[in-house]
């Protein structure tokens, strides 16, 4: 059934379904995904330019403004020592975003390598890697991240490793499954039959064909990594308190939530919107790749 005719849009017709331009074409027509993408991009930009844009410094303490509610002077109000919450939120955005992205990069790189090796070679190597990952996966991600960060210590880079390592099994599993399907297809047989080296086959043939499901996993992975990051910081294992990481802001606001709920509501809202944005994008890509939803 070659009926992926989208008579309305010409540029998708020539593009191979599943390829990157195709995904982008589909994504552009998905309002949710575009909304999510713009939210993240704008947030990221604001975060970097926040010192220039914001009226208040994110660490400036003004005791007489303590707990002030959202108003025209302080759009999102002030915290327990009178720091402007909007400035802190914007400055803190880069932590959440970069922890999400970098830790997913860690999971992705190691996961893809492990999964590709396991899937391509099979046999004992496969069993060994997958059993090890099984044991890993018996532990909830957040617990695993806590354990790892207990070993590594607290701090921005440690959080990235902690969350990144705890996300490896997901990527490895997905990669392995894809490799297994790709490996059995005929064009791989053709490549090996003309004496391509194993590495060449993996790098040039197997990985490119497994790339699109990987993109979905990456988008979803960033979402869940950002969520774990805020959880870790909330518990005090992640980025530590004076830094305006959103989870850490929630943790310090917790003591005042009875009287000043805005201090709790606002950072949580931003965590949710950011995670939601990545989820929307991931979901849209998955839909774009699903041949069953194509007609």
């Amino acid at each position: 059934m070659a009926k992926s005719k989208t008579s309305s849009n010409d540029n998708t017709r020539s593009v191979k379904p599943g390829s990157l331009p195709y995904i982008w074409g589909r994504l552009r027509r998905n309002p949710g995904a575009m909304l999510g993408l713009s939210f993240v991009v704008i947030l990221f930009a604001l975060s970097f330019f926040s010192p220039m844009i914001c009226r208040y410094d994110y660490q400036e303490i003004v005791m007489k403004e303590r707990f002030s509610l959202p108003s025209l002077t302080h759009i999102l109000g002030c915290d327990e020592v009178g720091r402007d919450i909007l400035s802190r939120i914007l400055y803190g955005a880069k932590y959440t975003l970069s922890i999400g992205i970098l830790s997913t990069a860690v999971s992705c790189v190691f996961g893809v390598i492990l999964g590709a090796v396991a899937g391509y070679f099979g046999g004992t190597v496969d069993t060994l890697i997958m059993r090890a990952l099984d044991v890993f996966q018996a532990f909830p991600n957040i617990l695993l991240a806590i354990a790892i960060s207990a070993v590594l210590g607290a701090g921005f880079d440690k959080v990235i490793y902690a969350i990144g390592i705890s996300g490896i099994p997901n990527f490895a599993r997905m990669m392995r499954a894809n490799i297994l399907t790709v490996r059995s297809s005929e064009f791989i047989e053709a490549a090996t039959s003309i004496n391509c080296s194993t590495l060449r086959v993996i790098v040039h043939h197997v990985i490119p064909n497994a790339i699109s499901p990987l993109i979905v996993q990456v988008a979803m992975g960033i979402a869940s990594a950002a969520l774990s990051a805020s959880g870790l910081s909330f518990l005090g294992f992640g980025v530590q308190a004076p830094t305006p990481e959103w989870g850490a802001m929630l943790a310090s606001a917790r003591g005042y939530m009875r009287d000043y709920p805005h201090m709790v509501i606002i950072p949580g809202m931003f965590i949710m919107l950011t995670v939601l944005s990545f989820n929307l994008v991931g979901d849209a890509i998955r839909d774009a790749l699903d041949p069953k939803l194509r007609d």
Partner: protein
Amino acid sequence: MSNAEKNLISVEDLVVEYHSGGETIHAVNGVSFSLEKGKTIGLVGETGAGKTSIAKAILRILPDHATQAVRGKINFKGQELLSIPEKEMCALRGKSISMIFQDPMTALNPVKPVVEQIAEGLRRHQNMSKAQSIQGAIKMLETVGISEDRAYEYPHQFSGGMKQRVVIAIALACNPELLIADEPTTALDVTIQAQVMDLMKNLQKELGTALILITHDLGVVAEVCDYVAVVYAGQVVEYGSREEVFDHPSHPYTVGLFGALPDLSKNVHRLSPVEGLPPDPSNLPEGCSFAPRCPRALEGCRKAPVGMSKIGDTHIVRCLLDGKEDSHGTVRD
């Protein structure tokens, strides 16, 4: 077709349209036929001609998500099937009208014992208790040649032929007046096909069920059917009694179909297939839909849709030539 009282079911101007990727797919385009009690009609045609859509439209089980429109009239014993409420339709399905599906491999629920799959229809329509319905189902299984000790097995434990027997048992459990069989033997091994066909024929005779047999196998039609409707691109292009159609195939498409059959009595070097492909159902030709493939197409064929004309007692054909040899001489080849 004059006496509506005599007919068990009559289909008039049935239209089924699907939508896919923003386009309308014209699967069935004004099909009419009727069938008396206990008789058999064969709907013959290529894959994609809309035969299955006709069957599913009668039972109202077309896929919701893809169906755009169903128009026309389907009269079953005085009831207008396309307009009665879903609840009444439910009461008819499986009781008065039932269907045998093409692929027995996927037609059975893999996680239910076969006996239960038959029994639930009995419970639904015959007001039976659980125990009674199981008894009835086991009897039905025996009727189709499956012994009681296999009744509680699951579909994956059966072979293809056995599964189709179960499907037949499900369809005939409530003694329906009309049975629709959608290519019931296509998915089976050649050796099993005859067995299953015989079983169906015998049961139909015994129970006095009317049968709509959808097939592309002209041999089966010759053996089983009282009437034949040749379906092309969602339209009936020729209709008549078996004798009429087989003795005087009149539409060029029908002629082509017969030409594609191996005839063992003659020493023909090659079969003559019908050249070309059926039209794209999302983009049908303006005139006769067979015209692009027709070896005898006239100027008029391409301009406007062609109507049905009567050429025999019950024999009608959708062709400007009315089944006559045209003046230009013979059929190509």
